[in-house]
């Protein structure tokens, strides 16, 4: 298929996609020192403008996105991103701002940051929020650095252990290691929640804190969360709330009220801003009063109606990001919150939970559910039945979803469910979309039964079929090189 040639492979010597006017000033040579000069010209592709456009437009049309199909990727909250967020963030007054402009010239931007902070405080039940972290994992690291600063300030530097349940997000232990701390894993109980006995065993004066998602990765609300908070506080530790699953609780329950000291929000999940490469992300971190002195510099403050950056905070952990965070993304989240309003946000969580339970109940007939109880905004289905009875794996099942224009759910995570498929529909999908997904999943279950060998070859209609993931991971080709 021609479409899949690399732009380099479309190159033909001598083709150009531009024309420059003739040089009409004296040419100056030798401006660059010799050691900075290339020995030979860079092997850039030689293509015409029209070919470049077609190449990238064709590539972009191979993408799956939430704008062209259902995207139930568990734990990622792939909700529809309202386009008004884009409009607002592109208003010339915002888009043309430079972070080096003076406070006098940027009062509007500062006011928006201050108000967004207030909204996030209210939603999370926190006292102050820093908007700097550029992603969820960056928020985690910032939160852990705050925990470290807190213990250090109190002369408790021996506290180096962070407790994480076995259903926790993979980024949690990674952030712990980045912060120079050590992870202690505790198991889940038979209901998929924190095992209080196991928690009790690991609590001592070496514990710096615990990182939790609530609802947890299995999609369940931690019923004993208050007791967990009490136990960890009593042992002198702090509680960190990973906000990855906050889409389930807005307006119903606040991490601050549960007893958490720190929270990060994923604006790109909960607050309708784009994900990843289309983002960037944004991971503001909220804290209770006792941690406010340690928050990154600067904080936005207001005095007599005038907003300013406060750097006079001697206990601050310092900056965690250049300038003031991903301001364009903050604007989009601000717009989202203002458009939804308090009641709207509550409705978001209500519908997200309803949609997940609807799919879970329907699919529990054709698939195995390790934990069959009311879920929150997502649930973990298993391909175990299909694997045991027909030798078809979760990989085979979700590859076939691609043939139906549906993005696969998160698979093989969490690790405590065999052949896991973690499904999060979000609140922005219609009943028709949910029904179509259910129908497709049932069709695949039937195919697993009737023609397992065929299903193992899925996908059938995608631009590329089953990829050799093992070779790609063992011998990755990371850059194009001209043939000898």
């Amino acid at each position: 298929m021609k479409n899949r040639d690399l732009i380099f492979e479309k190159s033909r010597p001598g083709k150009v996609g531009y024309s420059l006017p003739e040089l009409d000033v004296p040419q100056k040579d030798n401006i660059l020192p010799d050691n900075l000069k290339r020995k030979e010209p860079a092997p850039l592709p030689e293509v015409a403008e029209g070919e470049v456009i077609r190449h990238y437009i064709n590539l972009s049309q191979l993408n799956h996105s939430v704008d062209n199909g259902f995207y139930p990727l568990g734990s990622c909250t792939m909700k529809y991103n309202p386009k008004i967020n884009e409009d607002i963030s592109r208003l010339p007054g915002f888009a043309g701002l430079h972070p080096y402009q003076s406070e006098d010239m940027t009062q509007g931007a500062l006011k928006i940051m201050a108000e967004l902070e207030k909204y996030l405080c209210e939603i999370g039940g926190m006292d102050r929020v820093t908007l700097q972290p550029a992603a969820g994992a960056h928020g985690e690291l910032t939160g852990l650095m705050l925990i470290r600063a807190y213990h250090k300030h109190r002369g408790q530097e021996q506290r180096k252990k962070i407790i994480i349940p076995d259903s926790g997000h993979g980024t949690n232990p990674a952030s712990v290691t980045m912060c120079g701390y050590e992870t202690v894993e505790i198991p889940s109980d038979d209901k998929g929640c924190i095992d209080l006995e196991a928690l009790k065993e690991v609590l001592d004066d070496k514990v710096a804190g615990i990182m939790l998602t609530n609802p947890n990765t299995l999609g369940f609300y931690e019923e004993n969360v208050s007791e967990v908070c009490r136990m960890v506080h009593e042992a002198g530790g702090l509680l960190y709330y990973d906000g990855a699953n906050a889409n389930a609780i807005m307006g119903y329950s606040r991490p601050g009220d549960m007893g958490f000291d720190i929270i990060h929000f994923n604006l790109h999940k909960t607050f309708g801003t784009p994900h990843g490469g289309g983002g960037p992300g944004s991971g503001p971190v909220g804290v209770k009063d006792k941690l406010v002195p340690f928050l990154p510099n600067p904080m936005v403050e207001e005095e007599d109606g005038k907003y300013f950056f406060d750097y006079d905070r001697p206990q601050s952990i310092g900056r965690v990001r250049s300038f003031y965070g991903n301001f364009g993304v903050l604007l989009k989240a601000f717009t989202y919150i203002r458009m939804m309003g308090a009641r709207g946000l509550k409705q978001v969580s209500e519908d997200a939970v309803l949609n997940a339970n609807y799919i879970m109940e329907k699919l529990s007939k054709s698939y195995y559910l390790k934990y069959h109880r009311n879920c929150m905004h997502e649930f973990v289905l298993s391909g175990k039945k299909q694997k045991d009875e027909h030798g078809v794996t979760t990989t085979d099942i979700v590859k076939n979803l691609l043939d139906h224009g549906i993005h696969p759910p998160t698979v093989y995570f969490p690790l405590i469910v065999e052949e896991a498929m973690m499904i999060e529909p979000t609140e922005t999908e219609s009943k028709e979309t949910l029904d179509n997904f259910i129908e497709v999943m049932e069709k695949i279950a039937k195919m697993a039964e009737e023609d397992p060998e065929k299903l193992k070859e899925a996908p059938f209609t995608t631009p590329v079929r089953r990829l050799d993931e093992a070779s790609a991971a063992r011998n990755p080709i990371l850059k194009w090189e001209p043939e000898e």
Partner: protein
Amino acid sequence: MYPKELKYTDDHEWIRVENGKAYVGLTHYAQEQLGDVVFVELPDVGEEFEMGDSFGVVESVKTVSDLFMPVAGKIVEINEGMEDSPEAVNEDPYGEGWIVAIEIEDKGQLDQLMDSEAYQKTLE
């Protein structure tokens, strides 16, 4: 699938004692669950671990998991072949796919491990 002369752990490692040292690797069941192994992170020779300590990491296309010491001991040899061909864990888990060799601290700990039959029971 589960050779009689080996001892097994709950975490799906096997251990084989031979000529004063013991080889450690992952079981057939473990490699099947992991899927294609793409990377194995090994300890340094000379490092010492307690029974149940994590001594390395195995990464597959599906997941990443810790490797646990079946018994306490010192690393005396690592399988250098893992760097270029981690697929040996899948293709020959009890042979070319061995991961480390250790000097056992307390042979008595071997008695706490499972034999082939007991291990296979846990898989049912």
